[in-house]
């Protein structure tokens, strides 16, 4: 499978993707890098000047900076926690023989198809709204004061919305993995006297590890960039309670029109993302190798 011919060919075949992505990475990245060393406000394009590391210091000294990093990680972590655990549970449930399996599956995967701003709008206005939301209606039904989700638990609210969107993805992948579990292994465990719980712990869970790795990897990539949901719901507040790094950059770039500062933030975010990525690869990457 590996002759000189095929190897050379393989290089050639990789070329378009690699070159495209390289260009896609390098061009904006180098522009961003360049801007990050400029004093450049979109609203006063006349006053562009070299800034040195000022933008970095400036972005770093933003009072929301550390909290935004923390919030970024909390969103990623929180959503992963909910989707992986919930997804596993749902996958187990959907793997059982049930009436109307097809429809149930359709219902469960639906949130995945909803575009993030719509999802955020729906949750904000019709589900979590303290006055007219369904949650409020429910709590009034039980005679308690409705919770003002976005004011009292801003980060949690965002995590819930985002988790809602990603739960189907996790469920689907875990379900597929679950169905690939060798039935003889399951039977062997049954013969060995393992109860349902033991089979889950000793057999199913390890079997799902690889699928979970994939879920974590893919979702992390997307979750690091969550911002539309924040923009629509809390706008990063109250205070900085739900400002994550992408949103902080958004605030700098599209409210302050501070291209320099936002670029510096972008560079910082890329570095952070790559740290997370490397960390993630290290921790779970070996799971991806056969």
């Amino acid at each position, binding site marked *: 499978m590996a002759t000189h011919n095929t190897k050379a060919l393989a290089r050639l075949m*990789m070329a378009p993707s690699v070159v495209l992505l390289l260009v896609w990475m390098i061009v904006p990245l180098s522009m*961003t890098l360049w801007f990050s060393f400029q004093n450049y406000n979109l609203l006063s394009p006349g006053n562009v000047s070299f800034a040195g590391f000022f933008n970095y210091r400036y972005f770093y000294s933003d009072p929301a900076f550390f909290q935004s990093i923390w919030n970024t990680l909390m969103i990623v972590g929180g959503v992963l926690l909910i989707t992986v655990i919930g997804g596993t549970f*749902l996958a187990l449930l959907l793997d059982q023989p*049930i009436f109307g399996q097809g429809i149930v599956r359709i219902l469960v995967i639906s949130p995945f198809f909803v*575009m993030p701003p719509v999802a955020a709008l729906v949750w904000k206005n019709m589900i979590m709204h303290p006055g007219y939301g369904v949650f409020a209606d429910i709590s009034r039904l039980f005679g308690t004061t409705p919770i003002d989700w976005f004011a009292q638990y801003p980060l949690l609210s965002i995590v819930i919305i985002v988790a809602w969107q990603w739960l189907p993805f996790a469920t689907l992948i875990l379900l597929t993995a679950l169905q*690939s579990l060798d039935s003889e292994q399951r039977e062997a465990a049954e013969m060995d006297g393992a109860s349902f719980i033991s089979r889950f712990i000793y057999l199913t869970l390890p079997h799902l590890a690889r699928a979970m790795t994939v879920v974590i990897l893919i979702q992390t990539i997307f979750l690091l960039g969550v911002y539309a949901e924040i923009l629509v719901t809390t706008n990063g507040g109250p205070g900085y309670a739900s400002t994550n790094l992408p949103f902080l950059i*958004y605030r700098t770039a599209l409210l302050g029109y501070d291209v320099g500062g936002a670029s510096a933030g972008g560079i910082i975010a*890329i570095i952070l993302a790559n740290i997370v990525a490397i960390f993630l690869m290290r921790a779970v990457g070996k799971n991806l190798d056969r």
Partner: protein
Amino acid sequence: MARAVTNRHKVIATIAAWLIAFVIFFPILYTLLTSIKTESEAIAGFSLIPSGTFENYITVQTRNGYFKPFMNSVVLSVGSTILALIIAVPAAWAMAFSPTKWTKEILMWMLSTKMMPAVAVLVPIYLLFRDFGLLDTRIGLMVMLTLINLPIVVWMLYTYFREIPGEILEAARMDGAGLWQEIVYVLTPMALPGIASTFLLNIILAWNESFWTIRLTAVDAAPLTAFIASFSSPQGLFWAKLSAASTMAIAPILILGWFSQKQLVRGLTFGAVK
């Protein structure tokens, strides 16, 4: 394991599953229901029985034509997906069947390009688009979406291709197939479930992409994400209209997803299985 499942077990599982499915689906259902309520019903508190008016849809349609953004969404998501597949198939082939010690690293690097925060590069990209005359063009946006999703596409294809026994490609090679024929006649049809699922997933991602599609378009290329952006916070809480617009924006992809869920599920493993 083919022992008869007790009916009780099945009933309990069914109830639990339907309950959870209902909860998960509820926001969408409620949007649907709200879209056929009148505005005052919409904020009058919880009710599952709408008056069944289609007025909101008519209002939304007359206010912002639906057809054009819908077509843009279709063209953009399908176009960018096809483009991405064309570029990604050869790359995935090379990675799966002629791996080097760098293959994994290249793959991870590709994925890492997805982590670039879009907002940070908006201005550079906007300037580039302006200079190349790509602002508000379908082609520009299509390229953009292709680039954004390419890493995922490459990765998914790579994992599917890896499942295909190399012997079959070798057999084709022995049979006199050139590279192109090998890919067209053997690899692609064999990986079809995977490719189909990649295709679907990518369409979903492209359809729902709502940063660039709003920022780089105005009129000609604006898809449904931009359509929805014109309903989000008008003066007053027009939730019924918002719901109608939302329903119109997500319905096509939702229906596509429903109909193709078997394909999607079958292929959506990212090589995670086994």
